[in-house]
């Protein structure tokens, strides 16, 4: 498809859900109420690790106003012996134990019971009346503590070499022979890095409202990254068939991966079923911080070998990621993405999934990839320095391109990585002068992107306008992108297209909003549906004109004869044909369901300038440019928004965000005051340079764009700090206390 002369694709249109969101009308999960509604609350374990000997709920049940109490006895058990039951990437054995602890509580905040009562205050009081007999066990939170000999074991049934272990899985990507590769190398650099777990930080806490009728018919209003995931998980954990659960997607107040699993919905469903009343549950910020997300903390060692001319010949990465209470840390992202931007003959990339006593990790924007890229891109920076090469030149020399075989498997088609490096190199930012205590860093990043199941309906209204229904929650403006594409294809004004997100019982199965897949997948199905609609419209016009449908073309929102040979007819518009529809075969519309294929990976290259206040240890990002191959910017403003938002999150991860544990193994900073995400005054404007190398496997050239922009950030910031100070930090965050301590260290030594 021609990506240049489009009328709507590439336009900065006003998003369909915009007015609702600037006027307060948009309904997020916590905004809905129902007559007769009661409130649910969760009782959570205060211990990082404890066997649950017994739970006595009698006193809570006797409290006036309490309508239902549930414990793990009410949740469908997926026993460990029976083996994995997968729903997407989630194993239901862990999901059932994560929503409600069974034999053991594995982190502070782990649910052990839930109560529904007429007021929130009564529900909270009832939670205090539940008696839980805990056998407190030793615990391990940090990776080193979980791996050392004699470490407390979270899942005793799991053994490595016959011994119980917290290493739940090991995966690798391999290419060539690294032993040979390192033999060929003239320079080898090996470094180890750590990162702290960080939370996705969505501003909307998890919330739901659930009603279960006497016949079991269940309605769920909740905010998630997938109403179908909510339906499936709730069904599996409560035993209610999917056909009886209508999951309605509320507007979602941010997710970033953190809302790809359920926490509250199964509990609220059980409480609603038991009490016969609609149940609302809303997490507090503290519950969000203690019991949801985050992404893994990590320990990585990266070794890179190169020739003196800068040709990289071998690379080895070992990435240990904290999974939290249950297996499933994003090792695939760390292992697969970290070396993907480079054409390296010998690669071994290994990932280790380590359980520990903190909340189970959830996906976070390019899960695992930023952790791996931080280590690899910092080592490359050192390599460039040692070789006295420009860091972008080093990357250009080794860049993956069309035909490169990545260690994680695929042979790249036409990709835009080199273009991002060229644009960065020629960007005025890259050559701008720097002041005292200022530094500049660059880094690149890759994310797989994803396709998968998607469904959509395109219906022509009786008055000749268009309603598109898709099945993916819209977090960042996907409705606007779909409306642009649909207006383009049908040749009508953007404002005549209405895009809505259907619930589970009104639109076909659509997989999660995640993996940067939504616009890729949904525009593919919408394109096919629009093509079908256009075929119908041409047939209808052909009927009216009594000519062959082949002799009718669709252009500018109307049917026309393909040429004067076909006859002279006045064009029939969408409105004309909609009006004639009842007498000509009925309603006009099409629905398409696909397992979409052809999502190609995305690449980005970032330039970051920092200034370091050496007195206070404060690192400030003073200029930032994100360059990314975005395939096709269907709605450039929302593409830029993805880049800017991802960069801001990365700056937080690099400079401030971390969980702080107290001596009891509890998170000491479960709120926005002490878990310090970037605020408006922390950041500069974030410049974006969009490189458009269309995805050859997509009708509009679309590539996922949402996740790549987080991948390079921590390395870009770290490299800039090194450039400013001549001192490299090997652990994140580079927060003021840590920077001060490191800067003070040599001075102290000198004084001694």
């Amino acid at each position: 498809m021609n990506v240049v002369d489009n009328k709507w694709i590439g336009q900065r249109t006003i998003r369909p859900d915009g007015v609702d969101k600037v006027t307060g009308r948009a309904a997020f999960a916590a905004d809905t109420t129902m007559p007769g509604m009661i409130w649910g609350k969760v009782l959570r374990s205060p211990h990082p690790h404890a066997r649950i000997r017994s739970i006595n709920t009698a006193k809570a049940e006797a409290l006036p106003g309490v309508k239902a109490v549930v414990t793990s006895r009410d949740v469908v058990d997926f026993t460990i012996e029976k083996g994995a039951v997968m729903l997407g990437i989630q194993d239901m054995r862990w999901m059932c134990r994560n929503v409600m602890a069974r034999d053991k509580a594995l982190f502070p905040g782990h649910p052990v019971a839930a109560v529904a009562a007429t007021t929130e205050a009564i529900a909270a009081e009832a939670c205090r009346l539940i008696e839980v007999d805990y056998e407190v066990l030793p615990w391990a939170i940090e990776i080193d503590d979980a791996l050392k000999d004699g470490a407390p074991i979270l899942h005793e049934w799991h053994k490595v070499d016959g011994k119980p272990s917290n290493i739940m899985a090991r995966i690798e990507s391999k290419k060539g022979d690294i032993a040979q590769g390192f033999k060929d190398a003239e320079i080898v650099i090996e470094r180890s890095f750590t990162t702290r777990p960080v939370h996705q930080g969505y501003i909307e806490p998890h919330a739901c409202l659930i009603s279960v009728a006497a016949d079991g018919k269940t309605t769920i209003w909740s905010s998630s990254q997938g109403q179908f995931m909510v339906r499936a998980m709730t069904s599996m954990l409560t035993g209610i068939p999917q056909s009886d659960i209508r999951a309605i997607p509320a507007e979602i107040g941010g997710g970033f991966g953190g809302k790809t699993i359920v926490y509250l919905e199964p509990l609220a469903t059980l409480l609603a079923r038991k009490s016969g009343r609609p149940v609302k549950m809303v997490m507090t910020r503290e519950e969000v911080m203690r019991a949801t997300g985050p992404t893994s903390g990590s320990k990585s060692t990266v070794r890179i070998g190169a020739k003196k001319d800068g040709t990289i010949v071998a690379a080895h990465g070992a990435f240990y990621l904290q999974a939290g209470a249950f297996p499933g840390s994003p090792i695939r992202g760390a292992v697969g993405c970290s070396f993907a931007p480079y054409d390296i003959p010998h690669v071994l990339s290994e990932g280790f999934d380590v359980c520990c006593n903190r909340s189970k990790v959830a996906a976070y924007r390019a899960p695992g990839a930023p952790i791996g890229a931080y280590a690899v891109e910092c080592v490359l920076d050192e390599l460039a320095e040692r070789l006295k090469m420009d860091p972008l030149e080093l990357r250009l020399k080794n860049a993956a391109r069309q035909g490169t075989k990545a260690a994680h498997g695929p042979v790249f088609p036409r990709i835009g990585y080199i273009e991002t490096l060229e644009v960065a190199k020629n960007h005025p930012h890259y050559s701008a002068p720097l002041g005292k205590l200022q530094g500049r860093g660059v880094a690149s990043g890759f994310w797989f992107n994803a396709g998968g199941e998607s469904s959509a309906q395109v219906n022509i209204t009786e008055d000749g306008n268009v309603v598109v229904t898709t099945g993916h929650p819209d977090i960042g403006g996907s409705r606007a992108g779909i409306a642009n594409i649909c207006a383009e294809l049908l040749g009508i004004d953007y404002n005549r297209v209405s895009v809505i997100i259907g619930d589970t019982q009104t639109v076909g199965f659509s997989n999660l909003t995640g993996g940067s897949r939504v616009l890729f997948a949904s525009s593919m199905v919408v394109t096919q549906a629009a093509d079908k609609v256009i075929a119908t419209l041409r047939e209808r016009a052909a009927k009216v004109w009594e000519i062959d449908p082949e002799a009718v073309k669709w252009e500018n929102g109307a049917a026309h004869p393909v040429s004067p040979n076909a006859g002279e007819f006045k064009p029939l518009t969408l409105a004309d044909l909609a009006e004639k529809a009842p007498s000509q075969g009925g309603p006009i519309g099409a629905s398409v369901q696909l397992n979409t294929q052809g999502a190609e990976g995305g690449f980005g290259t970032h330039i970051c300038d920092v200034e370091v206040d050496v007195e206070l240890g404060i690192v400030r990002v003073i200029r930032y440019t994100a360059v990314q191959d975005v395939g096709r910017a269907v709605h450039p403003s929302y593409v830029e928004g993805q880049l800017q938002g991802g960069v801001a999150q990365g700056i937080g991860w690099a400079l401030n965000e971390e969980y702080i544990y107290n001596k009891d193994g509890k998170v000491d900073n479960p709120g926005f005051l002490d878990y310090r995400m970037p605020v408006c005054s922390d950041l500069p404007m974030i410049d974006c340079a969009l490189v458009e190398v269309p995805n050859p496997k997509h009708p509009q050239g679309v590539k996922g764009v949402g996740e790549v922009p987080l991948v390079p950030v921590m390395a870009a910031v770290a490299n800039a700090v090194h450039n400013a100070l001549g001192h490299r930090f090997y652990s994140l965050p580079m927060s003021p206390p840590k920077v001060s301590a490191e800067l003070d260290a040599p001075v102290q030594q000198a004084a001694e």
Partner: protein
Amino acid sequence: MAKLHVSTIVNGEPMEFLCEPYETMLDALRGQLGLTGSKEGCSSGDCGACSITVDGRLVCSCLMLAVEAEGHEIRTIEGMAKGGRLHPLQQKFLEHAALQCGICTSGMLVASEALLARNSNPTEEEVRFWLAGNLCRCTGYDKIVRAVMETAAEMRQVILEARP
């Protein structure tokens, strides 16, 4: 304990409600008054999603008791568009794509309006520091800051043009 009776003015309209003594203004707005445009992101004054004005002063409604509304004038996001016409800030936020998920947007708009009411010509730094109490995790703030500054410029222009 008996509920307390509160008379107040919300978005220009006199309103009465009953509340518990410990209830916050945000609870009252979102609960009994049915004004769910103000959001709860933290209930500790750290995110600004619940921003309202009380007699023109910018306040986190999660930090204010509902009874404190007695006799005062409250404005919320629901009162910002006048007679179906968007406020220039609302319009600019849409044009600049200054929102992604939209959960912070009500608070951002209320806070921005309060800024422009006292400073019609803010610098970028002034905008950034004024909005430092309003968290947005989606946008990186870039488009929000631009939208606020451009609205300010346009509103100044309108005032200039209205002069004889």
